[in-house]
């Protein structure tokens, strides 16, 4: 059986689907017998999802949108005068 350290080292490639079948299988065998590594895997994956979902909620605030709009309009007007 591969040890936990190897398992954690391979975690990134495992999640991204970059491991060959054999390595992937030996990793899964390890997971079956090792709750701490399963917990690590789950929380590692969860971290990515949580952060992505949270940071993706960012919208441009209305006042910023307005500022950008008038800034761009001004810039365009200047350009057209030239």
């Amino acid at each position, binding site marked *: 059986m591969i*040890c936990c350290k190897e398992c954690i080292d391979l*975690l990134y490639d495992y999640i991204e689907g970059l491991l060959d079948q054999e390595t992937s299988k030996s990793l899964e065998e390890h997971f079956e017998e090792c709750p701490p590594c399963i*917990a690590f895997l789950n*929380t590692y994956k*969860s971290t990515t999802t949580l952060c992505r979902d949270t940071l993706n909620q960012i919208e441009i605030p209305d006042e*910023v*949108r307005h500022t950008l709009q008038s800034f*761009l309009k001004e810039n365009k007007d200047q350009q057209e005068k030239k």
Partner: protein
Amino acid sequence: MSFTQQKVDKEIEEALVKDFQAGNLDAYDKIVELYQKRIYALSFNLMRNQMDAQDVAQEVLLTLFKKIHTFQGKSAFSSWVYRITLNSSYMKLRSKKKEPKISIDELLPSFNSTGFQQEKIQDWSENTESLLFTNETREIINKAVGLLPEKEKVVFLLRDVEGLSTEKVSEVLDLTIPAVKSRLHRARLFLRKKLSGYFEEYNSQKGET
């Protein structure tokens, strides 16, 4: 997004860029519409400050306007926009803080001499659903991301938050693929560690009451 949809979007975008390079200002407006949210979100996530992000967005949109003739299509247009956004954000950030370095060992579980884990690790991943949209969780996550060193943070934002491919991130940042991977892995480990502290405490409090 499906592959064909991506391809169509890419063609539309290339046509817009060409039109704008030929002097069509409506094409510029459409480019702004397509990109301003991404520009704002990326710079906001880097700097955590609305005014700074607004300044950067303004600067980037102006740069697109003035420098479009220098874009030669060697890389994707989006990569070019992301690079300008990052440069502009870094100019703002540079004066502000010193960088702590993260050591990977602190982020990994502790192993014994044969490489097996010694401590119990709490699996909080099943309880995150109900926590996801509370203000407190959001704040913890924002804070954790804020603590990430710049090098790791930018890779994490482009790849995991913006959803760019590893290849695209390496193009935008001019990094090798292995460098992108190792920074991303470090970022995720760092954030996992920070979030673990929070969720473990949350779960143990819940267990007590």
